[in-house]
């Protein structure tokens, strides 16, 4: 029984705990045992907080025994990318520079998860300052892919994607500034949501590029991601960019099915450089939705390349602004790859940066009008290739934009620029046994529609239920 618990979905284990069929302590112990076996092989955990987690689990069980009202995630074991601050603890942000920095307050999303009853088991791997879709970190070593430990898990939320895929925890928070949750999720075969800008508070999470940063729930199923999203979404006075509109009932939205929904398939920008084997799997996924009653509409997405460049302008300028003192005073503490990625931001003209911000509302309105008046969601490939091997991805210039995973961000970054929601959904495996995912994107605050489509897909497929060997 013990090893079966971590293999349950988040929704299932939450229900088991709530109905007292298993205790929170049992659920936490079972995950800790799996972490003890699996984490060293994958290098996905930065810290494991076993004693604190067990104490929290016992408190959760005591509260349940007293008949206290419990949250939706009561007793559920989670772990998060090491970018979320907790008062009195270090958040490394994957960087040597931050290794001794103790947080003075706790991130809103961590407080909300605790309020919902979730238990944090530790912190998870990321590349230095979340820079790099391949997920390498020369300070901490590479995070490995659970489907083949000789391959990368992707980045930057690779620790989250790997830990969830390997059934070490039931869910995780990552972050997504340009694809950092969606890409590793696709490479590891799990689900990740990049929410609409303003849906989820970023207060207390590492700022990389604040006008693009989002907090991203990651889990094995769309239903689980919807549960995590519901627990953390909504206005936060500490993050004035959050919106005050009510958070929809995401669980109710799951049941809608796709009959009559229009699924847009842009065949130009997003398909460039995608390997035929990967594209075949994505197309098979499209046929599944069509068989479920969705209307498939093929068309072109206007101006996608320009949107990617504008996103890069914001990312580089904002990241360099935030880290300017470190870039100038402590450059030798960065790894060369990350220093090379961040330094160009010091030289972006202010007019260029302001243009990128100034154009944003107009381009967002145009994009929404031209795309989402014609279709309800977009469906695109995510990873153009399966996870590359660690060996091949460690060689050469990692900042070379023609490398497959760097190129992959051309299909993800535009949604950060436009502020739109997008979600990674696993859709199969290559002949080598490595996962592939597709991306769903929607109009602002249409997370419920993405959940509806993704859940409908997962009801009739079993990619999300397949488990990597230990």
């Amino acid at each position, binding site marked *: 029984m013990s090893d079966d618990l971590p293999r349950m979905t988040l929704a299932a284990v939450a229900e088991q705990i709530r109905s007292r069929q298993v205790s929170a302590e049992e659920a936490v112990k079972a995950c800790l045992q799996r972490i003890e076996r699996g984490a060293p092989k994958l290098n996905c955990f930065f810290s494991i907080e076993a004693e604190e987690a067990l104490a929290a689990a016992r408190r959760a069980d005591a509260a349940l025994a007293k008949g206290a009202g419990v949250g939706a995630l009561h007793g559920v074991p989670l772990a998060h990318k090491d970018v979320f601050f907790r008062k009195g603890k270090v958040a490394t942000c994957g960087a040597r520079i931050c290794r001794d920095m103790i947080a003075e307050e706790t991130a809103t999303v961590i407080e909300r998860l605790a309020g919902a009853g979730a238990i944090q088991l530790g912190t998870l791997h990321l590349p230095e300052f979340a820079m790099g879709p391949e997920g390498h970190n020369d300070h901490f070593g590479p995070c490995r892919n659970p489907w083949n430990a000789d391959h990368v898990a992707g980045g930057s939320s690779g620790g989250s994607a790997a830990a969830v895929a390997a059934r070490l925890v039931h869910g995780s928070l990552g972050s997504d500034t340009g694809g950092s949750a969606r890409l590793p999720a696709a490479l590891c075969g799990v689900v990740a949501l990049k929410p609409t800008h303003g849906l989820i508070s970023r207060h207390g999470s590492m700022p990389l590029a604040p006008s693009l940063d989002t907090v991203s729930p990651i889990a094995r199923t769309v239903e689980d991601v919807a549960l995590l999203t519901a627990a953390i979404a909504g206005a936060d006075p500490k993050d004035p960019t959050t919106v005050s509109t009510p958070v929809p009932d995401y669980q109710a939205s799951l049941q809608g099915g796709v009959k009559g929904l229009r699924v847009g398939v842009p065949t130009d920008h997003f398909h460039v450089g995608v390997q035929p084997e990967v594209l075949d799997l994505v197309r098979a996924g499209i046929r599944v939705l069509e068989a479920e009653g969705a209307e498939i509409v093929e068309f072109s997405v206007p101006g996608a390349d320009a949107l990617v460049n504008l996103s890069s302008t914001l990312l580089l300028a904002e990241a360099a602004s935030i880290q300017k003192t470190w870039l100038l005073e402590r450059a030798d503490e960065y790894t060369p790859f990350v220093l090379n990625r961040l330094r160009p931001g010091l*030289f972006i003209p202010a007019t260029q940066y302001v243009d990128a*911000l100034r154009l944003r509302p107009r381009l967002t309105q145009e994009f929404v009008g031209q795309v989402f008046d014609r279709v309800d969601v977009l469906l695109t490939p995510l990873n153009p290739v399966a996870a590359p091997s660690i060996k091949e991805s460690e060689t050469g210039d990692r900042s070379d934009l023609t490398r497959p995973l760097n190129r992959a961000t051309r299909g993800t970054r535009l949604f950060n620029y436009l502020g739109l929601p997008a979600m990674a959904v696993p859709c199969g495996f290559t002949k080598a046994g490595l996962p592939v995912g597709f991306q769903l994107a929607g109009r602002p605050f249409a997370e419920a529609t993405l959940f509806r489509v993704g859940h409908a897909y997962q009801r009739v497929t079993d990619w999300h239920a397949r488990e990597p060997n230990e």
Partner: protein
Amino acid sequence: MLTRDLIKALARAWYGREIDDAAATRTAATLSPLLVTHGSGPATRPFADEAAGFGGALMAGAERKADPR
């Protein structure tokens, strides 16, 4: 087009730092493709209106009625 020498000069002038040729070349190569005009035209409204407009654009996009088919 940015050049290696321009980046080196800016590093010296703005930040009082010397950067090596390779880093300056890489920086110039990274930035040059980004420094293109996107046809925004002259700004006719204060910048603050435009920045605040992003949230408005998102809300408008959320509220826009889909094709009723």
